[in-house]
Structure formats: C-alpha cells, structure tokens
C-alpha cells in the first residue's frame, strides 16, 4: 500500500464526480428525498415515522452508495484504465481504498444533508445526539461503498455487477430489523441477520435514536460496521485480479 497512490486515486475519483452532476445529485439528494417520502407516507402516524426514520438513515445511503460503486472497478476494466494501472506501482488495496476515501467524503456530505433534513425539517424525534446520528450515517454510507467495491471486484462484467444489488442488498434490507424487529424473526433468520453488515448499521442508528449513545450500545455496533467495511475492502482487494483471461 502506498498513500501517494491511494490519495491520487481518491483525488481522481472526486475530479470525475465533480463533472458528473447527475451522480452527485443522486448521491446527495436522493436519500433525503426518500426519507421525506417516507415522512409524507406516515403523516397520519408520526410515531411510526419516528420508529423507521432512524433505520432509513442507514438503509438509503448504503443502498445508493452500493449501486454507484458496484460498477466502479468494472468501468475501469472495460476502458482499459485498470490494466494500465496494474502495470504501474499501484496495489490492489490502493485502488479500492482510493475509491472508498473519495466516496467517504461524499458520504459525509450525504449524511449532513439527510440527517439535517430528517431532524430539523421532518421533525424526526430521536433521544440521542444529532452528531452521533450523523457519524453513524456516514459509516453506513461507507459500508455501502465498501460492499459495492467488493461486489465490483467479484463481478466479471457491469451486467453482473448490477445484478449484485438485488442479490446482496435486498435480503439485508428485509432482515435488518426495518420491517420486523430482528429479535422477533424466526430463529434461523435471526441467526442469518446476525452476520449481515446492514443489521449492525441499522442497530447503530436505532441505538443512537433510542438514546443509547456510543458509550452504551451504539459504539459496539459502529465498531462492527467498521470491521465489515475493512473486511469488504480487504476481500475486494484479494478478489481483484491483475491477470485475467
């Protein structure tokens, strides 16, 4: 791993994003719009919005980041830029970390927007600290990025990569506790949800929302999310192939 290369990749990805207004709008505005839509749906039942609002702050950013990053390495494969980079002194982890770093910055802006709108415009009622909700939302965006990059390294074509979203993300959304609290799931499904990263992303947000801050409960969930982020990037780097058929 070479920090010079990692930062060069991150700076380049950000420069490309700066030119791509539609993707930036999707990354930053869409989670806020979707949360607003949910608020509207539950105008007759604000207590429900208070219950699901928090978890949605975890789910929407991670899904959207996943979709955008899951084609990232494939795009570079099809244009040949990945081949060129692999003949240069660039580690596979440099490449993935560079992307993760660039999208982590986007995740910070995304979290600021979505958390501010949820708390101050939509009156989402939480007991914990707003900044902790923000931190967890950033982590969840980065989790989506890391899972997307892993899927991207795993898929052979962009066509395969877009199929990863329903295969990887939808089961996690169903089992993460958003629809049915995880402790009310059948035993086997509860056990499955215990090993899925999005469960911890949602647990962390829910803990903060219920007033259990980083020192009591949310902190452990946040650390598990960080562990999943690092594992996804590590596995992605291990899966990415310099030599291809």
């Amino acid at each position: 791993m070479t920090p010079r290369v990692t930062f060069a990749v991150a700076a380049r990805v950000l420069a490309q994003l700066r030119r791509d207004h539609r993707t930036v709008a999707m990354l930053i505005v869409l989670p806020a719009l979707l949360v607003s839509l949910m608020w509207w749906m539950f105008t007759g039942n604000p207590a429900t919005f208070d219950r699901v609002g928090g978890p949605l702050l975890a789910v929407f950013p991670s899904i959207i980041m996943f979709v955008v990053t899951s084609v990232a390495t494939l795009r570079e494969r099809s244009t040949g830029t990945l081949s060129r980079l692999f003949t240069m002194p660039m580690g596979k982890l440099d490449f993935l970390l560079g992307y993760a770093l660039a999208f982590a910055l986007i995740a910070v802006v995304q979290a600021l927007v979505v958390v501010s709108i949820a708390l101050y415009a939509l009156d989402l009622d939480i007991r914990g600290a707003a900044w902790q909700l923000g931190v967890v939302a950033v982590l969840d965006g980065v989790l989506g990025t890391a899972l997307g990059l892993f899927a991207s390294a795993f898929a052979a074509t962009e066509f395969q990569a877009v199929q990863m979203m329903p295969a990887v993300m939808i089961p996690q959304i169903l089992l993460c506790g958003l629809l049915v609290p995880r402790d009310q799931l059948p035993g086997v499904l509860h056990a499955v949800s215990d090993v899925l990263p999005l469960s911890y992303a949602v647990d962390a947000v829910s803990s903060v929302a219920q007033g259990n801050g980083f020192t009591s409960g949310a902190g452990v969930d946040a650390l598990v999310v960080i562990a999943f982020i690092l594992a996804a990037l590590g596995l992605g780097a291990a899966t990415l192939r310099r030599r291809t058929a």
Partner: protein
Amino acid sequence: MMKNAVSCREVVVVRGDREVLHGVGFDLRAGTVTGLLGPSGCGKTTLIRAIVGLQAKVTGDVAVLGLPAGAPKLRGRIGYVTQEPSVYGDLSVSENLRFFAAVLGVPADDVDRVIDAVELRSHADVRVDRLSGGQRSRASLAAALLGDPELLVLDEPTVGLDPVLRRDLWNLFHSLADAGATLLVSSHVMDEASRCDRLLLMRDGDLLADDTPQALLDSVGTDDIEQVFLTLIDRKAGAR
C-alpha cells in the same frame, strides 16, 4: 547493459478451453523497435498482455528486463498502451496525465514533456471524450511515456492516425529506442513493417518469422511484406 529486454520461450496461453498461443519464442534486443504484425485475432494482444503481466494461464518463460513477467519490481518500468485508449474520458488530457504521473511517482513536469512528445499541446485541457479517436489514442500513448519506461509495449498505437502523424510517431519511437528504450509495437497494417528494426510475424497463435524487414523481403524475393506473409503461410502449409 542487458542484451535482451524481453525473452520468451515456449510461451503457451490458454483462454477458456482454447489454446491461443502455441509455444511462442523470441527475444527483443534492448534499444530496438520491433513490429508485431499479424491479422486481427492471431494472438498479438494476448502475447502483449503476457509480456506486461496481465494475462492469466501463461506457461513457458516470459522474462522482462531480467525478471519474470508481472514481477512487482517491473511495475512502472513498462509503458503499456492497450488497444482501446485507456484514459478517463471525463478528464482532460493533462488531468489524466497528472493522475498517472502521481501513481508512478514521477515529477509533474514530466506531464508537459509527454504532451509535447505526442503533439497534444493545443488540446491539453480538453476532456478526452471530446477528442477525436486519433487524439485519444495519442493521449493514451502519452500516459505510457511518463517516467521514461525502459520497455514500451504498444498495442496498435497508430490506428486511425493521419500519415503525417504516423510518421512523427514512428520517429518518436526510434528516438526513444536511440535513447535506450525497447519498443514492441503491434499493428495489423503491413506498411508499417518497414519502419521497424525487426519484425515478428504472427498467425493463428504461432510465430511465422522473426527477422529484420530486409532479410524477410530478401528471403522471398519481393518488396512487399504482405507477399512475405503469404509465402510463409504457403510454405508452412506445404511443410505439413
């Protein structure tokens, strides 16, 4: 000074369940320009990818600058131009080159040198996807020139370029070779053969010939490299 920049022995490559290179062997002398000629689909790109260390399922020996192909220590010492222009379309020429320079760890002023070398000064700040095909492939070539690599492996770098530009690029290739670099340039255009110090003629995953252009022409008694190709193919068929 090492004599051979690239040395291949009995190189076999399998893609899927098909063998696409059937035991290719040759040497590239340091400081020369070698043309890799053959029809589309004959295995040129596969051979090139084996040399730069990106091809899977390679057996036999591929030694590059005295190391096994793909060795980590080779990264940055080889300039590689893929057939498709491998630059970012949504960045300008100079942004692309500054990025690759940062990855290579070469000084930023090298960017100006390579922009001038491929004559893209007037388009340095234009997004690559707004350039013509020829300009795009020159931007890709410029990236491969960064940091003065000892070996340049160029997969069809002159496709779609006008004759003046092609002549200029071939002059550039020779000046790089005079400065000590070794170049392997693939082409399916036979008329580029005369510009090379040596030629490798390929067909269906086999090497038909490995010689200087003049020796090849003399061996068949023609002044047309395409005729050399046809004669060698006929001789090979006859030998079977």
